């Protein structure tokens, strides 16, 4: 790996190596820029991942965050990446494309926000990401006849079979989910062999065989091959401005010592919590007062059905069936909609959800755990509207790097609750149609979006439509904090596409 002197003014420093940071890093390095990525977490070789749920969180951001509001959102394994690869080390690799209607939600419904981005332009980048990382899926795709997946879909597991049967009985369209899981072995440039799907249900714990795309087995090795330097275990906590109010350097902590890297441009890609935390702590880029506002968490309610047979949904790609029939459901009084995905989950994850989401204890809890192997789930990714009071602020408690911990307040609004209610009814019907003996609803939210949102108007957001700070001309943000609205599609594929787009706009 090429290295740069800390006193050298490198072209770009990128903070974070997840879905927002890595594609951009690779693009900029590929065009010959001198780029350095600073990553708070460690670098892990593929065989350093473990699927043991107790120990796997070494790839998650486990430094505590504080959660408040009416519907406190869970962090830790539920919501954070840590290490070279960021959130893509533990993501579920579910890769729906963003729906054009979701990008114009405000125009369509009068609530939420529009994206200041053209859907066709975004889709070109999405297709490029799919090609680069290897996304498998069905062609033709029922909700988008134009779309072509280069890899055939991976196997359906037992929960997918049941959801498919239930949907078929009800006339709901459902098909193999697009997934960033290879269905054929491939030689990934600058990384090496990635194996075809091994039907692993433990991909959220980190995956050793490369069947799942991460930035660590795709964009990052490409970036390094083109001269990028990645510094792991490097936590950025300061940003220095020059006399003109432009970023001149970042300050970070590595091995207990403080370092400073000079740079001509800065890209923040620390994710929906860490980027606003850094900006609030440094007091930068916040003339709009929007940093930390409009925290969005996708609705993630799940319904589980118990069946006669052993389902063992921890086998196989966990969400191998999708339905986009409810992106705009008919006859409803809410804005936006939701995606459905079949669910198989790992045991500790399930236990945690039944405890926190359904209040179980004692014999009833043990029975639920015994019933887990007979259970199949369906979950949603539901639109979340921006709300002024769902926000991230700094608490007065310091973390291990001396930075105030984030306090995130979230309360689901009427629209979110209406979506949850509609989706719960839909999923229950599907499971019952599939023959479930009983069903159970588990509450959950997922993802951390919107806290440094993109806006055409500098008064209502933190970055412009290109990804550049409204206030600081050489500071850019490329991560989930920039989402103006949540979209019904899960965010990671869109994020990687946005990352390439921002890189191209920086290179202009």
């Amino acid at each position, binding site marked *: 790996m090429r290295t740069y002197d800390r006193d050298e003014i490198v072209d770009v420093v990128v903070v974070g190596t997840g879905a927002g940071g890595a594609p951009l890093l690779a693009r900029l390095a590929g065009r010959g820029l001198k780029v350095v990525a600073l990553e708070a977490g460690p670098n892990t070789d593929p065989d350093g991942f473990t699927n043991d749920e107790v120990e796997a969180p070494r790839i998650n951001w486990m430094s505590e965050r504080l959660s408040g509001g009416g519907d406190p959102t869970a962090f830790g394994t539920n919501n954070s990446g840590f290490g070279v690869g960021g959130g893509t080390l533990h993501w579920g690799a579910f890769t729906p494309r963003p729906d054009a209607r979701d990008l114009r939600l405000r125009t369509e419904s009068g609530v939420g926000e529009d994206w200041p981005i053209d859907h066709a332009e975004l889709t070109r980048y999405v297709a490029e990401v799919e090609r680069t990382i290897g996304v498998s899926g069905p062609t033709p795709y029922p909700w988008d006849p134009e779309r072509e997946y280069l890899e055939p879909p991976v196997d359906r597991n037992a929960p997918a079979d*049941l959801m498919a049967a239930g949907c078929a009985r009800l006339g709901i369209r459902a098909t193999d989910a697009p997934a960033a899981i290879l269905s054929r072995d491939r030689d990934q440039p600058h990384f090496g062999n990635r194996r075809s799907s091994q039907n692993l249900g433990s991909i959220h714990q980190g995956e050793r065989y490369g069947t799942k795309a991460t930035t660590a087995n795709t964009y990052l090795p490409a970036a390094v091959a083109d001269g990028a330097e990645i510094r792991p275990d490097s936590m950025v906590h300061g940003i220095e401005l020059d006399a003109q109010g432009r970023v001149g350097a970042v300050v970070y902590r590595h091995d207990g010592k403080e370092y400073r890297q000079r740079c001509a441009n800065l890209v923040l890609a620390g994710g929906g919590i860490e980027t606003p935390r850094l900006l609030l702590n440094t007091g930068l880029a916040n003339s709009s007062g929007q940093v930390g506002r409009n925290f969005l968490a996708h609705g993630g309610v799940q319904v589980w059905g118990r069946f006669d047979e052993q389902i*063992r949904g921890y086998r196989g790609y966990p969400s191998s069936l999708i339905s986009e029939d409810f992106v705009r459901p008919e006859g409803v009084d809410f804005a936006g909609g939701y995606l459905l995905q079949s669910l198989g989950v790992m045991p500790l994850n399930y236990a945690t959800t039944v405890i926190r989401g359904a209040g179980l204890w004692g014999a009833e809890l043990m029975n639920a755990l015994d019933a*887990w192997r007979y259970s199949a789930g369906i979950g949603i990714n539901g639109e979340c509207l921006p709300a002024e009071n769902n926000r991230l602020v700094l608490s007065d408690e310091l973390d291990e790097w001396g930075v105030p911990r984030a306090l995130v307040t979230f309360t689901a609004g009427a629209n979110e609750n209406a979506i949850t209610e509609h989706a719960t009814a839909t999923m229950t019907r599907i499971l019952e149609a599939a023959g479930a003996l009983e069903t159970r609803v588990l509450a959950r939210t997922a993802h951390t979006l919107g806290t440094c949102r993109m806006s055409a108007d500098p008064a209502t957001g933190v970055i412009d439509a290109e990804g550049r700070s409204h206030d600081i001309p050489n500071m850019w943000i490329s991560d989930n904090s920039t989402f103006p609205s949540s979209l019904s599609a899960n965010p990671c594929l869109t994020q990687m596409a946005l990352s390439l787009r921002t890189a191209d706009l920086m290179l202009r």
Partner: protein
Amino acid sequence: MTTPAGTIFFLPGLGFGAAAAGPIADALDALAGGRLRVVGIDLPGHDGSPDAPNGSVAALADRAVQVIEAEADGGPFVIAAHSMGGKVTAVVTDRILRGRANVFGLAGLVLLAPSPPTPEPMSEDKRAEMLSWVDDGPISQGHASEFVAQNVAAPLGEAAARAAVEQLRRMSPLAWRRWLTEGSVEDLSSDIGVLDLPVVVLAGEDDDDLGASAQPQLLADVYPRARFVSLASTGHLLPYERAAEVADEIVRLWDATVPTAPQVTPEWGRLIASERTAPEARGFLAHRALADDPDYAPRVLSPEQLSMLRALADRLVPQSGTARVDLAARVDADLALARSDGWRNEGQPANVFAYRLGLDDLSALWPDDTDDQNATAEQNALIEGIISGELNEHQALGGDAWNGTMRQHWFDDLRTDLTRIWLSHPASFARIGYDGFATSGPAFGSVGYNTVAAGLRDPWEPVELGDLA
């Protein structure tokens, strides 16, 4: 009480072979009626087995691990080891607990006048004398007899003495020399660190360097859970001098560790032991499978708080039968490591403080006469009230420092922590039908699942998980 059948692996001392396990095996048979199988191991250069490739303790451990891997059946086992075998056992145990051996089921150790992981104390005169015995090839009848005589408190019976001498005479001079000049002087203590498992150390009062008075100093840091037993009128050759007492202690350790801890069936044990399971994962499972220390001293909580936590654990995550995980002790140990799940509710005290406040508060509210039907009903009402939030208004001990939502939120964390600890035990995995740990092997061949349909399983999966595809 019926105990699951299991295996005792025996690693002999310098000069002795697998046959040295004989008297102990006989004593065990008399005592335990065949429920324990004894497998003696010929370490390299002993009793006719070929010499090791080099003189390191690791090379001796390699052979021991090979035999254990080949002979283990997936069920529980204990390693008993004498003298030199004790040092080898430290290495073997370290490997097993790190998952670096394809075995599963280690329950504890019975060490007999063991050589420690640090350089074995031995006078240079004695070393020189012993080395001189093999200057001209295999040890002579006379020196072998002298060696036995030097190492016993009272003369062995004629048959035992003859057996011991025969084994000594078959030993390779190279192995003898290597142990005295290499293996015994190796310092492995920093590699091995702490081995936190059930251990009993027996030693004779008439042994010198490795005797009863020396052992605690040599081993207490390596084996924090070790119980030291000193045997009067006993020298160094415990397998011959005190076979009955050794057998007694083996059974005692077995009964204290195997029936008290949840066990997996041998089929599950073999799956954990197999190449399909990554070494690291096997190590995690090996640690979790160990019986809890009945004398566990809490590191973060007070003894009263630990008792309260145990009472809560019994209600929140009930375990039936006598084989149990001490969930409360494991929560305390996790708290001491400052493990966190990455978030907490706004205003909630940090984990350790929440546990202390919460347990103190509950002690004041807890109806604790467990024999009383009413008490159980009252406990249920209390638990329900906390979970639902109905009790949030209920005055808490500690006043403002511990208000009602804190209690409710802590209770969510508590239930989650207890459940995750219970569930991550290998026996719980088996109970709920989870074998995903066995999809983490080396990256060739089929590492995951071929069959993912309902009701079906792959050939390598435990039979109760479905029909073959």
